[in-house]
């Protein structure tokens, strides 16, 4: 566990440093970023440099950044003039709600589909649909859903973050491709598990098909799904940026996009560190889940 923690920290540090270096290498200097479209005179520049302590050597700035980040102080946004922590804290809710709902929806959908579509024709229909979902850009799905169910039929609000209704379309958009991949993995896992000798044994005991599927095969099929959790995280966080754009939802994605395009260094770094943090946490959880589901890996 201690080892995990250590590697987690290393990953965090590496991610933060990589991002820091990347942004340092970006064209245009920090002062330009802070000025944005505003007026630009030597006086203004010097004031900005003084205000943000930009006259210190790069290494000092970096170390200072690390030191303060370690204490949970992520600095202030150049653009929004607010503490980065507040910026992130404000936006995390909607993104989290979206991601968690989509993940839940995707997983449930995948489970239901994988278990119910066992007959040849059903699985053919289902796997074709999955392939299409997985191969379609998610924003296209979102745009089409939005046009049909919101603009034309008016069943769901167009955007925003109020109430469950506004969550439906974005969550579905994000969940569909997730469900597509997970169904494929689950179905494949089920097929493999059903080929295993212990399944024949289970049948030989008089177990019905459904029971074999749910009680025996499903747990085995879930194992590869757990290894996908890291991937799922990337999809959800990355997908959120696009989904939030398409549906005009607030959230971390919007903050990130804005921060990157306007080179709001503190915010970008915070998002990177945050996302690396979530990644580490999620992967640790996945490992734990693995131990719960597969006792073979537990140390005796």
């Amino acid at each position, binding site marked *: 566990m201690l080892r995990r923690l250590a590697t987690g920290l290393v990953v965090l540090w590496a991610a933060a440093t990589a991002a820091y270096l990347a942004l340092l290498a970006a064209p245009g200097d920090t002062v330009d970023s802070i000025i944005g479209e505003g007026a630009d005179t030597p006086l203004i520049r010097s004031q900005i440099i003084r205000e943000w302590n930009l006259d210190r050597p790069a290494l000092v700035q970096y170390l200072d950044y690390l030191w303060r980040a370690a204490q949970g102080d992520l600095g202030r946004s150049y653009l929004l003039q607010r503490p980065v922590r507040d910026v992130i804290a404000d936006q995390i809710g909607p993104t989290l709600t979206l991601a968690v709902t989509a993940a839940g929806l995707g997983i449930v959908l995948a489970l239901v589909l994988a278990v119910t579509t066992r007959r040849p024709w059903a699985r053919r229909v289902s796997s074709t649909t999955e392939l299409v979902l997985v191969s379609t850009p998610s924003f296209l799905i979102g745009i089409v859903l939005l046009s049909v169910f919101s603009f034309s039929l008016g069943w769901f609000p167009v955007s925003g973050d109020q109430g469950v209704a506004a969550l439906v379309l974005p969550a579905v958009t994000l969940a569909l491709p997730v469900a597509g991949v997970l169904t494929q993995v689950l179905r494949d896992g089920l097929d493999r598990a059903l080929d*295993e*000798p*212990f399944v*024949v*044994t289970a*049948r*030989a*005991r*008089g177990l019905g098909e459904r029971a074999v599927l749910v009680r025996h095969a499903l747990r085995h099929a879930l194992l590869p799904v757990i290894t996908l959790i890291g991937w799922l995280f990337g999809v959800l966080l990355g997908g959120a940026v696009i989904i939030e754009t398409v549906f005009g939802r607030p959230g971390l994605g919007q903050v990130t996009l804005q921060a990157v395009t306007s080179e709001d260094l503190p915010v970008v770094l915070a998002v990177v560190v945050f996302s690396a943090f979530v990644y580490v946490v999620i992967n640790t959880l996945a490992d734990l889940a693995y131990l719960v589901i597969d006792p*073979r890996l537990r140390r005796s």
Partner: protein
Amino acid sequence: MSELLVSVRDLHVTFPHRGGDVHAVRGIDLDIHRGECLAIVGESGSGKSVTARTLVGLAGPNAQVRSSRFEIDGRPGPFDWPKLRGGFVGLVMQDALVSLDPLRTVGAEISEVLKVHDIGDRKDRPARVRALLTAVHVPEPERRAAHRPHQLSGGLRQRALIASAIAAKPPLLIADEPTTALDVTVQAQILDLLAERRSTGETLLLISHDLAVVARLADRVLVMRDGQVVESGPTSSLLAAPEHPYTRQLLAAVPSAASRGRRLSAPAEPLAAAPASASAEVVVEAVGLRKRYGAHTVVDGVDLTVRRGEIVGLVGESGSGKTTVAQLLFGLTAPTSGTVAFEGAPWTGLKERRRRSRRRRLQLISQDPLSGFDPRWTVRRIVEEALPSVPAAELLERVGLGADVLDRYPRQLSGGQRQRVAIARALAPRPSLIICDEPVSALDVSVQAQVLDLLADIRAADGTALLFISHDLGVVHHLADRVLVMRDGAVVESGPVDDVFHHPQHEYTRALIDAVPTLEVSR
């Protein structure tokens, strides 16, 4: 005549396949009477398992089953399979080690049967599970019920599997190769268990490729080959006077003390005389070999000498360190302490670069030859790589393979062919020692017979020394000149084979020998 539990006539099972259907069972007749023990024997792929599985309606998802009569418990089909399975017929699957769900506890697996067949209520199931585990002699049943398969040894797993098969008290128990993959001592215990159930009047359909196992338990025997029954009859008369040549061949191919000095594949011919003598030069000498992995000492002070032209057997139960000794000799792992000298010169402790030139004099044949071949290479390339100066066909001829296999990939060969290619490759550089780690344990008796004969021939012709690792005492007794018995990493006994096997000094050796089922047949 007693009551017929199962009666089948002219059973055919076909698996449709793109490259041509596999006709696994071709018109066999089968009757199982209440209270008897019927055995099916035959080489691998002869259709034994398919037959057994067909009896519980699990021939396979796309199997086509035909028969002129198929009656279970006196009634013709269609059957209510879920009810019959476990309830009327208990099945112990062939792959004992992987036939329990690895993610569930043994107790859950067993009580699942009770639940499906509505036996007892929820509350008293744990007690029943405990009783069942006790009945199959699982020690500490309470604790074991909460364990998962990976926490159990092979023997315990097989017992738990049997417990789950008999949980619903089915009148008929089918045991498909219940002892393969188990150590001899454990195998003996499982056979005892089955014999015990037999004696309580249970009906048993026993499937095995090992005639010795069958001889001990069965009342009647069916001999299968290529999906057909070639011979059947009461055990004693069939073993005493086999009528079909195939049955005879099968019996003759079993290596044992009795077969020493004779060919197994052609019983009439004697083997070429062994050139070995106690004064021949020493090929490899290991002194005080010790290997630790962490706190675990895997090899514990092994001394070993192999002389030119000698076959030295290394036996011991699983995990006793045999393979590790082989690796230490081969020089892939360094010993924690102790030294190995090869052909009179130091071998351990050298840099790999310094050993490279002598490498070819020391060859290795493993249990699974497939993994020893680069999957992208044809047989020709594999063999030519070993000795480019000689045409591959010539090398293959020595091991009895025709030129037709030259352009095949290893995967396209049968197990016996693969092992021959492995031998051909090992022989090519004219090594002074070949380390054989369980070279025949994955092979059928008849194929095994051919490979063993081949190894004996090579030793006789080239004077190549062999270190022959096996858990099969019969094989070692048949082939080796001297034997070392290992237990827990240490050699507990060693000496000429006949001395050790006929007059074992160590109690562990004795236990090993007692556990081997033997076939008392006249040849």
